[in-house]
């Protein structure tokens, strides 16, 4: 029994609403306003990249801009800057096209301990991530307004990569930039309607973890990564 007590529960709800229980898809009247579509409405990709870069200051995130050919160099500088002795990264189909696969090989040659997320390694992936200095993933959709990278976690991109290591690097192809969460939500909604089930975990990540629970002081770096760098790639 995967659903329990539903009928009596929902019948009680309908009784209180004073009408028969609704079991068919309900009609929606159209909304009177749609302010979410107004934000950065006519921005170009370059303007969106500028907005993202500006907002990174607010969310305590380092933002770098580069080209595909320079990306390995910028990644190396960033990993070194984070004193990265161990790195875990997602197994992403974009790794080859962006020259990241060869960069990871070079990391290992330089003596950095490296793990490419691999389902056949099972729980070892998480153990590695927990002690890793740096986690690296691509952004699937990037929200300019809030400075957010969206990850559709899957078998090659475990939830732990962007969560357990001390620091986190997101590679942001410029083409993934959209104005705000509205466009990402519509993408997921449309895909779901077209019969593509949503990923088991969608992570919207906006900079490093933080807390204001002690006397309202902002503390950057609590349970998730303490430092974050975004690299926007032309």
């Amino acid at each position, binding site marked *: 029994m*995967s*659903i*329990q*007590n*539903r009928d009596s*529960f929902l019948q*009680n*709800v309908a009784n*209180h*609403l004073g009408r028969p229980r609704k*079991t068919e*898809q*309900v009609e*929606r009247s159209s*909304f*009177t*306003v749609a*302010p*979410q579509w107004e934000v950065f409405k006519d921005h170009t990709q370059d303007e969106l990249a500028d907005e993202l870069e500006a907002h990174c200051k607010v*969310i305590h995130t380092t933002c770098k801009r580069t080209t595909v050919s320079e990306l390995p160099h910028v990644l190396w500088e960033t990993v070194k800057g984070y004193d990265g002795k161990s790195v875990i990264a997602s197994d992403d189909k974009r790794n080859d096209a962006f020259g990241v696969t060869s960069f990871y090989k070079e990391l290992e040659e330089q003596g950095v301990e490296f793990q490419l997320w691999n*389902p056949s390694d099972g729980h070892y*992936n*998480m153990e590695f991530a*927990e002690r890793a200095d740096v986690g690296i993933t691509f952004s699937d959709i990037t929200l300019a*307004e*809030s400075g*957010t990278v969206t990850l559709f976690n899957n*078998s090659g991109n*475990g*939830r*732990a990569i962007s*969560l357990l290591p001390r620091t986190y690097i997101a590679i942001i192809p410029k083409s993934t930039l959209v104005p*705000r*969460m*509205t466009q990402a*939500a519509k993408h997921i*909604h449309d895909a*779901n309607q077209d019969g593509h*089930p*949503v*990923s*088991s*975990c*969608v*992570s*919207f*990540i*906006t900079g*490093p*973890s933080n*807390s*204001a*629970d*002690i006397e*309202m002081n902002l*503390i950057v770096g*609590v*349970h*998730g*990564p303490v430092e974050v760098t975004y690299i926007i790639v032309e």
Partner: protein
Amino acid sequence: MPIKLGEASYKERIQSGIENDFMRGAVSSAQGRFRSGRLKAAEELGNWEDWRTRGEEIRTHTLENIDFYLQQLSDEVSKRGGKVFFAETAEEANEYINNVVKEKEAKKVVKSKSMVTEEIGLNEALEEAGSEVIETDLGEWILQMDEDPPSHIVTPALHKNKEQIRETFASKKGYKNSDMPEELATFAREQLRKEFLSADVGITGCNFAVTESGAITFVTNEGNARLVTSLPDTQISVMGMERLAPTWEDMEVLVSLLTRAAVGQKLTSYVTAITGTRLEDEVDGPEEYHLVIVDNGRSKILGTEFQSALHCIRCAACINVCPVYRHVGGHSYNSVYPGPIGAVLTPLLDGYDDHKELPYASTLCAACTDACPVKIPLHEQLIRHREIIVEREKKSPKSEQMMMEGFAQWASHPAAYKLSARMARTSLKPWTKDEIIKNGPGPLKGWTDVRDFPAPSKQSFRSWFKSRQKKERGQ
């Protein structure tokens, strides 16, 4: 603890709130920061009223069709390998969760912040059954060690200062460093990592459940909810039945309203949407997933004039502008839901008997209504509560009833009225100095304890008016 925090009377709670100088300072500075953050975020958008309208429209539609959307949600979660349990009462919810924990032979349960689990008293129920429960939100972890209830729904440990927190860490966990917030947080990170890695079950609340696809969404900053949903093999999400967004696009608008109204952020560090169990070739995320949907008195609110109270998205904007909360603090409300929304919701969920004072914990200034991102008419609902308490429930205080009857008698007999108006000044003379009463007798005491009361004038308004009329007629 259930929705009610304890047995101390409303008056006693307020007294200890008002006397707690640190808490009052902390609350007023927090209110200031929250409020300016919200206003700045609203101003940046430029069309905040349109956003509020959109939010209200989404919530109104959702609650009017809540039975369909709950059915859709449970179907979708079940399609993705999750189990769904509908709980009419707190006891049913706790029993189901306890059974899952027992079946898994779980010893350690990690939790992320959830108001509904506070409301149903889940931690106590789990502990009674022999499980170790660890709150992992920094504020909740501090409160758990001190066995102290939350005083704010966004920053639960608002009433504590860093010296107290350092002391708690030192006595309970052997902490040796300073009271710098960063050092305290680093210590919490190290301690709690161990707990996350060794926990058997993770329990979360839910900010919004996207019914079209069965995604349960968490809006957080610390990252603990991500750890709770990523590491343990068994996961349970508990949600109040109204916590729904029909589509991803609706969820997006509600999250945008929530983060702005709560803390003035465009988005929090993490918005995480999990759907059912992990897929076959995935290695993190739960292999067993349960969703517990809780009524616990909510359905009684449906179809009544208070239905819109269920539109609440738990942002605490109303709490952050409330002048009464500012002075008495969260614990005075004797409810896990403090502030204006707590004063509206608590009597609805838990009855008037224990909470009849709450609707009076308001100046009816309507700041709460103006701040609400989904336009709940909070102060109007507080007035309606008062009407019900007086007229239907007959629960106004005995002294007030007697006073009102006395007043009716007195005011309808002109001779009595005239006489006592003249006598007031004379009878209050022993307490009057320089036309001011500083330490008044009887019912005046509550007032004069905190501020002065002017002595009754030598001349009553009626006699002043009479003599003025005489003068005008030139007599």
